[in-house]
């Protein structure tokens, strides 16, 4: 099936199917969403106005049998950061879109009235329908209703947070078992809400992705999958999930605790991956689960309550850290309940609990009040009360509303689960990322803490800028392939992994990319994104951490973040 660009104009409610412009042909995933946003969106526009565009793109390998290739990129100008944004998620939508022959889905314009709509994507293109029944409903109700209306289809949806255009609203993508995976960060759910699109259903019918050289592809995929399965990190991810990190980051003194005032959390053992694994087994849950067919790592899980009923799945370290250590809640069941609520409301499970931590410092709730967090999510955020909207607009919004100065954000986006004072490489990533603070943009934790891809001492400044730069370039390229980022552990350590990945791309398209081309692709993506931000009014002075990281030492190492502005700016020397 030939790939096309599917375009939806919500101003006049028309759709079209277009040929792929030559300049976009070699791109997929993040490379494509950022290329399209940079080409078609005015950098100074209001993110929630008619000039912004929401772009979805499956990765270059999505829809094929390549292991772990089902990530969906979503891009736009972010209402949270004001920068360009790409957020990617698991679930089945990327594979289904690719099988529709949809290289990218561009949603532009804005309807005039108050009505809401849904989109249906098939290999023929997109149809727009008015939607009434599901407006105001949570993501699980939408998924349930869709399953009876149109069984077996892919689903991309927003919850009440997206409808209310909260800056922390995410876009949710259904996984094979009705769980939700999220294009989590940067408020892309609000952009979808501003277009008045409640959900997108995807029906690939019998559509298939064409492979130029099927034999070569199969061979490369075999080598690739073997590298993934054989890597010890993959094994640990399958058993403990990403939450295996709680104890090691705590032991390293880099687990931000009590709104970033401490580097270790007393209750770490109770919220750790080890405890989570034991609890899941005792309650007949599933320690292993995949967010899309074809994942061979299976870091997801199904977490049940004491009576054996499912509370949540895809229960991630960063979400558990945010509600756990940052808000001082040492009860995994309460954290799981809050996670499920956020999946249903459709709100970022990093931004929102970090905002709660700032609200706790302001005295809105007490640190440790897990049932309070669940109540605020249900009664305030989901209902859009004034307090709910202050929290739903993110950590910086809470800081401004309550006059708190210890607000852990960069470019308005909440800093996740790794303290940049005790793990300095990640501070460079937070500061320089084109998207606001985001650990996934250049995961220096691998090398600073986990000893994967070499070792760089987390407490010294030496080598951190270069480490972050190399990882950000590599990540931008991987985010274009549709690969889950957790392939990176094998890619950093196993000689066979990356060449096999490149070989699959070559076999898929009948091209001859080399390792150098992949590096150039990553560099191009970062530079394209940065150029957008500069044109939107950002400068190098926005590439800084909040004051308190430079002035408040964090225990147990009693260190501050000590990079000068000039040192940070050398990041862009490439």
């Amino acid at each position, binding site marked *: 099936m030939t790939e096309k660009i599917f375009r939806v104009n919500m101003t006049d409610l028309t759709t079209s199917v277009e040929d792929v412009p030559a300049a976009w042909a070699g791109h997929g995933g993040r490379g494509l969403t950022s290329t399209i946003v940079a080409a078609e969106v005015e950098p100074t526009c209001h993110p929630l106005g008619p000039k912004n565009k929401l772009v979805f793109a499956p990765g270059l390998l999505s829809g094929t049998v390549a292991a772990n290739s089902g990530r969906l990129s979503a891009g736009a100008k972010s209402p949270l950061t004001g920068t360009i944004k790409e957020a990617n998620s698991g679930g089945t939508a990327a594979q289904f879109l690719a099988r529709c022959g949809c290289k990218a889905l561009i949603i532009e314009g804005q309807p005039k009235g108050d009505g809401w709509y849904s989109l249906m994507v098939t290999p023929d293109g997109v149809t727009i329908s008015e939607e009434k029944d599901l407006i105001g409903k949570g993501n699980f109700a939408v998924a349930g209703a869709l399953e009876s209306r149109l069984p077996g289809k892919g689903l991309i949806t927003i919850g009440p947070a997206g409808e209310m255009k909260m800056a922390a609203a995410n876009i949710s993508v259904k996984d094979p078992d009705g769980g939700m995976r999220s294009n989590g960060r940067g408020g892309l759910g609000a952009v979808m809400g501003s277009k008045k699109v409640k959900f997108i259903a995807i029906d690939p019918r019998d559509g298939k992705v064409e492979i130029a050289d099927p034999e070569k592809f199969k061979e490369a995929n075999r080598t690739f999958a073997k590298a993934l399965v054989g890597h*010890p*990190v993959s094994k*640990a*991810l399958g*058993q*403990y*999930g*990403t*939450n*295996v*990190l709680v*104890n*090691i980051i705590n*032991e*390293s*003194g880099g687990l931000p605790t009590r709104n970033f005032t401490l580097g270790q959390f007393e209750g770490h*053992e109770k919220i750790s*991956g*080890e405890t989570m694994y034991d609890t899941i087994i005792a309650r007949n849950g599933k320690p292993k689960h995949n967010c899309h067919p074809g994942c061979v790592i299976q*870091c997801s899980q199904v977490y049940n309550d004491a009576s054996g009923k499912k509370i949540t799945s895809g229960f991630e*370290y960063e979400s558990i850290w945010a509600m756990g250590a940052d808000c001082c809640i040492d009860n995994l069941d309460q954290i799981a309940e809050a996670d499920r609520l956020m999946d249903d409301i459709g709100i970022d499970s990093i931004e929102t609990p970090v905002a709660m931590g700032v609200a706790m410092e302001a005295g809105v709730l007490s640190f440790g009040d897990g049932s309070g967090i669940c109540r605020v999510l249900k009664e305030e955020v989901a209902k859009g009360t004034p307090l709910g909207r202050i929290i739903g607009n993110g950590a910086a919004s809470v800081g401004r509303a309550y006059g708190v100065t210890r607000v852990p954000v960069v470019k308005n986006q909440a800093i996740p689960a790794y303290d940049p004072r005790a793990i300095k490489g990640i501070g460079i990533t937070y500061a320089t990322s084109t998207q606001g603070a985001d*650990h*996934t943009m250049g*995961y220096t*934790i*691998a090398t600073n*803490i*986990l*000893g*994967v891809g070499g*070792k760089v*001492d*987390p*407490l010294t400044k030496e080598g951190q800028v270069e480490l972050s730069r190399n990882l950000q370039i590599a990540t931008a390229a991987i985010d274009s392939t549709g690969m889950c*980022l*957790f392939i990176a*552990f094998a890619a950093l350590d196993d000689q066979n992994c990356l060449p096999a990945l490149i070989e699959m791309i070559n076999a898929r398209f009948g091209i001859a990319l080399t390792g150098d081309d992949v590096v150039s692709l990553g560099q191009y993506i970062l530079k394209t994104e940065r150029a957008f931000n500069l044109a939107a009014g950002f400068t190098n002075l926005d590439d800084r951490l909040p004051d308190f990281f430079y002035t408040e030492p964090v225990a*147990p*190492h009693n260190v501050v973040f000590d990079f000068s502005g000039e040192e940070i700016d050398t990041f862009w020397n490439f």
Partner: protein
Amino acid sequence: MQVTVKLFAFFRDGRFKEEGREYPPGTTVGDIVNSLGIVRDEVGVVLVNSRQAGLEAAVAENDAVAIFPVIGGG
């Protein structure tokens, strides 16, 4: 000398989470790993008093030694 040893992930299976243990002066991290029957190749990260350390690092009285298998996430 007294050393606090902490184990994580599947290193805990059939062993312990945290234990105060006696070792002779001059003990290295590698000696502790051996004393616990842990395969050296399976060790991913060692933190001595919250700092990264190698298997050859010497351990002192009252140190806290945390031993992790190769793990990742993010």
